[in-house]
């Protein structure tokens, strides 16, 4: 099986506001196979989102390249859907109009777009909420709209940037299960960014651990050989899950502490 996304020596350097340069990620090389669900975990502020923006084509790496299904990426990644961490819905569009936005941009007739939009709203459990505006929906409902907005275009690659981090624990568990269910229907390739190791293990086929920033790079990869289908709430209690968690946490711990110390120094200084 070929790789859907491969990072080849990707380095991203930004000009810092105070002068000088800040290297967010340095020489990152790893790949995601077709149909694979990969989580990327790392301490906060380590440049996880930078990697995702590179894969989306929103950010051009300073060095290195990204290949999408073997071809070098130039411009926006048209085969990927992106679910952002922050609120990304257009507030002036109703839930339905948000879901169908991508179809509209592609020039579909409004009847057809509407039919498919209603269908997707129902699939994410929001049937009958189509005419609500984003501010009239709860945080979890808005995330569902975002999910439908991305999935309706049937992208081959899903890029997800801590999509559920703003949700409460219960809603989050529900959303994770729904994501797994939707994913298992047609097994797209997923890069799922999170800082929550439990979430990463429960969802993924493989977990990539990043070092603390600056100059973040992968420091470990762990195959998650837990059986599917999974229930994220139940699988957390499985002995094998606990073993995996211990192993990965052990490799991360030093980096998390390093990242924490840096943040503290930045605040203190």
């Amino acid at each position, binding site marked *: 099986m070929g790789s859907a996304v491969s990072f080849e020596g990707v380095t991203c350097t930004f000009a810092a506001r105070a002068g000088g340069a800040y290297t967010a990620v340095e020489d990152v090389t790893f790949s995601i196979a077709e149909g694979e669900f990969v989580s990327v975990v790392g301490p906060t502020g380590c440049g996880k989102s930078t990697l995702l923006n590179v894969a*989306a084509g929103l950010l051009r790496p300073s060095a290195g390249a990204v290949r999408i299904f073997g071809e070098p990426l130039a411009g926006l990644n048209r085969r990927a859907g*992106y679910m952002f961490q*922050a*609120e*990304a*819905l257009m507030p002036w569009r109703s839930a339905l109009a948000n879901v169908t*936005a991508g179809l509209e*941009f592609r020039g579909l007739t409004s009847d057809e777009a509407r039919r498919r939009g209603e269908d997707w709203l129902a699939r994410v459990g929001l049937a009958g909420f189509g005419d609500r505006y984003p501010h009239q929906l709860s945080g979890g409902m808005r995330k569902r709209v975002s999910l439908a907005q991305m999935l309706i275009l049937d992208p081959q690659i899903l890029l997800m940037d801590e999509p559920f981090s703003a949700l409460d624990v219960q809603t989050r568990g529900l959303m994770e299960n729904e994501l797994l269910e939707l994913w298992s229907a047609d097994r797209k390739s997923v890069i799922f960014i999170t800082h929550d190791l439990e979430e990463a293990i429960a969802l993924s086929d493989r977990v990539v651990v990043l070092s603390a920033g600056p100059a973040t790079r992968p420091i470990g990869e762990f195959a998650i050989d837990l059986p599917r289908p999974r229930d994220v709430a139940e699988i957390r209690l499985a002995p094998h899950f606990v073993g995996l968690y211990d192993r990965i946490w052990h490799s991360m711990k030093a980096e998390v502490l390093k990242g924490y110390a840096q943040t503290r120094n930045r605040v203190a200084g």
Partner: protein
Amino acid sequence: MRRAPWLWRGLLLVAILAAWQALAQPGLLPPIVWDNPDRAAFFFGEPVKIVRVAWTWFADGSIYGHLWVTLEETVLAFVIGAGLGLGVGLWLGLAPSASALLDPYIIAANAMPRVVLAPIFMVWFGLGIWSKVALGVTLVFFIVFFNVYQGVKEVSPVVLNNALMLGANRRQLLRHVYLPSATSWLFSSLHASVGMAFVGAVVGEYLGSARGVGYLIQQAEGAFDINSVFAGMLVLTAFALVLDAAVARAERRLLRWRPAQSEVEPL
């Protein structure tokens, strides 16, 4: 006070008007400032007579022609000024080099007291409605321009990137992201800009015209008819309130997607 604000507001108005009427009444109070008992009424007018003048204007229908002209000027000034402000605001918001070039000129033009342009506009456009519309446009344009410019600058980068990832091209970004965001800022300045269009119309009429409520006031002033001046102001105020209510209605309809200030209130 909290339970029946309207009652208290009404009482306050009645009290002020009664005091005004009493103080202006010839001979009611012993002369303190003026020895001529009619002097107070001459300088300050009398509420009863003011209302009577306004009433006569509406009863004989002579006011409608003037009101219509003022309304026409206000609406034209608003539509043209807002259209130009929206267009230029979008353009400069999306073209950093053009905005860097024009920025100081726009600040300077906005800082200039534009009412002094009124006589020039009268030379250019004559004494008809267009010189008043031009004055209103210069007032409305900057309010709308600055709001739209800000709206374009403050489009959420996440919403923008999301639209890009959903496949929007440049034109679609403009149509579906920048324009809605900019118009929401335009509507938040709607009250101010309609008010400015109105000011432009009335000031223009006041400085030189043959019709309109501003003209009416100017005529009365020329004849030292203080009651008619106040009656004209009364009509203008009522007109401005009606205009403002219409704007509020339009705003509620068009910005349905925006969260209300607070949807629940403590009892």
